[in-house]
């Protein structure tokens, strides 16, 4: 370790903790790999309309189940649609489902966890009991049941996944709040007469933020698999709109005739999910104050 690095480590006060975490994240190879994978897929999803690719919904009776070729890099499906194009458009469904459903889980789960942990008492008891009950149901079974009753669509699948993931965030936030609310700075904030709302948003939330970020990244990975699973079962994105899960659902009927139909969508899910898992693990290491 050079002198300069040592100095930086001894005097980190002027460096904002976010910057420090970012530097540690950059130094973590696997997290960078994860981030690159995610950026790649996000970019594809965003620029999909601009790319010179075939219409993902355009069927062609002269190009049914064609093996990968110069015209169709990844081949075509059972009704002659270009698989590469459907893969790229499918990235939209997957990423959107991952981000939106975790957004729902965070938007409902975190406030409930904050209230539960901060106020305690009977509010806490009710929220905790309900959370435990929902955690007693396997994630996917609950998402399937909810999606089934809400009706099959990508939007409902996102709601179902979000609601199923929500208890995770309630429990995590509550636990974090319990561990920081007795800290001196919270007592200090209270003693200078700040209201509950200000104490929660200014003093508690920023200090429970890191584990939530890690959990969110890992949960996006789970949510993407869940969306693919629901779409695979026919409870998510509805045909003919492209999604990786529903592509696999069709592909399994043509395994011997057109194996390429099954290969790519699964590989894409696998890659994106690995990306978010790597990022989540990397964030955990980078944000862990014990190693700072």
């Amino acid at each position, binding site marked *: 370790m050079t002198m300069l690095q040592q100095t930086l480590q001894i005097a980190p006060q002027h460096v904002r903790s976010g910057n420090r975490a970012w530097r540690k994240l950059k130094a973590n190879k696997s997290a960078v790999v994860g981030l690159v994978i995610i950026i790649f897929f996000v970019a594809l999803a965003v620029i999909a309309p601009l790319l010179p690719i075939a219409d993902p919904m355009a069927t062609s009776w002269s190009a049914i189940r064609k093996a990968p070729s110069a015209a169709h890099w990844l081949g075509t499906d059972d009704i002659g649609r270009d698989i590469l194009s459907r893969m790229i458009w499918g990235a939209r469904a997957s990423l959107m489902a991952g981000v939106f459903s975790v957004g729902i889980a965070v938007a409902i789960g975190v406030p409930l966890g904050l209230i539960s942990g901060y106020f305690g008492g009977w509010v806490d008891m009710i929220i905790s009991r309900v959370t435990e009950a929902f955690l007693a149901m396997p994630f996917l079974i609950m998402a399937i*049941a909810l999606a089934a009753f809400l009706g099959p669509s990508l939007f409902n699948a996102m709601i179902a996944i979000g609601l199923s993931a929500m208890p995770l965030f309630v429990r995590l936030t509550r636990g974090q709040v319990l561990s920081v609310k007795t800290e001196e700075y919270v007592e200090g904030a209270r003693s200078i007469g700040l209201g509950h709302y200000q104490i929660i948003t200014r003093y508690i939330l920023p200090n429970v933020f890191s584990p939530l970020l890690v959990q969110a990244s890992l949960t996006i990975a789970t949510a993407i698999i869940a969306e693919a699973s629901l779409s695979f079962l026919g409870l998510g994105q509805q045909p003919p709109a492209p999604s990786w899960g529903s592509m696999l659902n069709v592909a399994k009927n043509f395994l011997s005739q057109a194996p390429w139909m099954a290969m790519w969508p699964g590989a894409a899910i696998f890659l994106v999910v690995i990306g978010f898992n790597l990022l989540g693990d990397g964030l955990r290491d980078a944000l862990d104050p014990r190693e700072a």
Partner: protein
Amino acid sequence: MYTYIGKRLLLAIPTLIIISIFAFSLQKLLPGDPILAMAGEERDPQVIEFLRDKYRLNDPVVYQYVYWVGAVVQGDFGISLRTNQPVLSLIAEKLPVTIQLAIMAMIFALAIGVPIGILAAVKKNTWIDYIANIVALSGLSVPNFWMGIMLILLVSVKLGWLPASGYEPFFSDPVRSLQTMIMPAFVLGLALAATLMRHTRSSMLSVLRSDYIRTARAKGVSEQAVILQHSFRNALLPIVTLTALLFGELLAGAVLTEQIFTIPGFGKLIVDAVFNRDYAVVQGVVLCTAIGFILMNLVADVLYVLLNPRMRAAL
């Protein structure tokens, strides 16, 4: 010990009540009117009224819930709209299939996850450790239904070694039964193997750092004995409880695996029920899974106490 189990069982009651409210209200989320669907094409008002009365849909919601729970407690989960069989007997019929699948998957998971976890901990920060970690991460990230499809493609379609689907009860033809189950069990077990590997590794690492391991080494115990007898036995505790917890997860994972390999189990039951709009079955499955999950949690807690002498003394 018994008071501990009793206390844990009592704690499960509020959980069960909340889950039953959830399962009950799922029905109310439905966009359509199930009675109209049941009444058939003519929609005879008399038939509709009769059905409404029969299913007590004219009573207030709270009453409906109480009737429903009352019946469920007596083992009456309703009748499947599709097959006209009682839901409970449907579940009882499918559950053994999934239990066989789950047990085989767990055997795979333990056989793969635990030894690799030990190896990764012992060889910490070597290439063995890195590869084990990459494999575990992949196991956690791969969608298991895709894994299943790829295995069918390779093993059944290309190589023709194993049947791609089908089911044979274990006791009627064990060999055929194992042949049809081995791929699905492997697929289902793989994600668990990854979870088990990660936990075994971290549990072993923390034990290997402890004082008594240093003492054992200092007094000249062979490295093999240090790892297998001193460390592993102590690292095993969290793994045993995790295994019990993961059994619950297997029920959920089985949904997709059974779908791909067309195994007529619990998971296929819920998916078929969803598509046949057979909501009594969906409710029954949700409730039964939750009960199973809670029981496995209880088993995990009890095992933890039983295996840990310090915890036993504290009771």
